[in-house]
């Protein structure tokens, strides 16, 4: 097969794969609705506020409950030392309240 033809076929196959993956995503989104409802139910009954992503520290486990000072609580001069702490930011508060609280 000519190289240019082979390349075109290769690209077409990949594009086709991309289309397939888009369809797969669409499919998974519809089948996931029931699971999502289950999770929503859990959030409601347990009154949860955070996803369980980083279980290293308190403020990484519940970033929505943390504030800017949480990582530095342990002692004066404490540094942020948990790896996932660099990924997690405290919640942005509405400007009208509690700046510097």
């Amino acid at each position, binding site marked *: 097969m000519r190289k240019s033809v082979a390349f075109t076929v290769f*690209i077409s196959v990949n594009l086709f794969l991309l289309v397939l993956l888009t369809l797969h995503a669409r499919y998974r989104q519809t089948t996931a609705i029931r699971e999502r409802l289950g999770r929503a139910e859990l959030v409601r009954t347990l*009154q949860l506020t955070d*996803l369980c992503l980083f279980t290293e520290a308190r403020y990484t486990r519940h970033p929505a409950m943390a504030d800017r000072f949480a990582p530095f609580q342990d002692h004066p001069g404490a540094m942020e030392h948990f790896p996932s702490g660099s990924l997690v930011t405290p919640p942005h508060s509405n400007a009208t309240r509690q700046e510097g609280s």
Partner: protein
Amino acid sequence: MSAPLNRHSNILEFAISSLLRRKSKNLSLLVLYTLIVFVIASLIFFVQALKHEAASTLKDAPDMVVQRMIAGRHDLIPARYGEQIRAIRGVSAVSPRLWGYYYDQVFGANYTLLVPDPKQVEPGNILIGPGVARNQRVQAGDMLTLKTSRNAPLLLTVQGIYPSSSELLSSDLIVLSAEDFQEMFNLPPGQATDLAVTVANPRERVTVATKIAELFPDTRPILKSEILRTYDSLFEWRGGMMVVVLAVAVLSFIIFAWDKATGLSAEERKEIGILKSIGWETSDVLLLKFWEGIVISLTAFLVGVVLAYGHVFFFSAALFEHALKGWSVIYPQFKLVPVIDAYQLTVLFFLTVLPYTAATIIPAWLAATVPPDAAMRS
């Protein structure tokens, strides 16, 4: 086939044959480039999926959570605060939440202990998350032991394990009765971890929060909108790991383009001179370079993106585990719902293909404009 199509097809053929002439160099270039696209695309897929998950799951979170702060630290809140808050106009319900952290020394893991309201388990029974079950290697019906704050062992029976579809929420959870919670942590009477406040009208929430802050200056109300925004800004392009990964990727793109842009070798220059002398126009030579650039960058983009999708949605982003896990012992098994963000992928496409192709064409421009009789003179 039409003449323009033939021209493209023939020149593409020569472009590929030119790339194959320096097979090892171009192959390693392609592999590396694909790897970079793979990492960035994986990040895009992973983050988007998580963001969607957070937004859709947490929209049922409590309207407002009121925390008490003492000396800048999160402290227990007196339940009587809740009575006064209940009286504020707009507040339909206040429920004290009991939850906390437990560090298991034996297994080295952090668990979140939580008492639901209304109660779901009898004293002595617990519901645990799949991460806890894995960590402690227990099944429903088994028992596990926790150490109370008075250093006494507390035996609990696993009544059930939350389904794997709830991993993202429940992985490290232990749901227990109020009595067992008290046994564990020995809270002073009348105290709770924080208060969950229900305000039916979303527009009144800020007003209520302000009133609570006035009423109890030692509290910190957290609105649901802020909770959602926390997760929205998680993995924002501007924050933490994303900047590092992005910087590395951009740097790599630059290095690739630089290698191309620093000009042609004498051999490449000579070859272009020959092409010009046998009848190739400047535009033909540039088309050749264009195809050389496209072959590599387009392949890298498509293969990288397809592999990234498979990595994130079929293999639960296994390669990110190490970076994300950090020092955690319990790490959820992500079975994320695929979300394809066309905008970000389009940006990635342009970033991948455009600069590289330009860097392949532009240095050749000068050589391509050489007069055709130069080959006769040399």
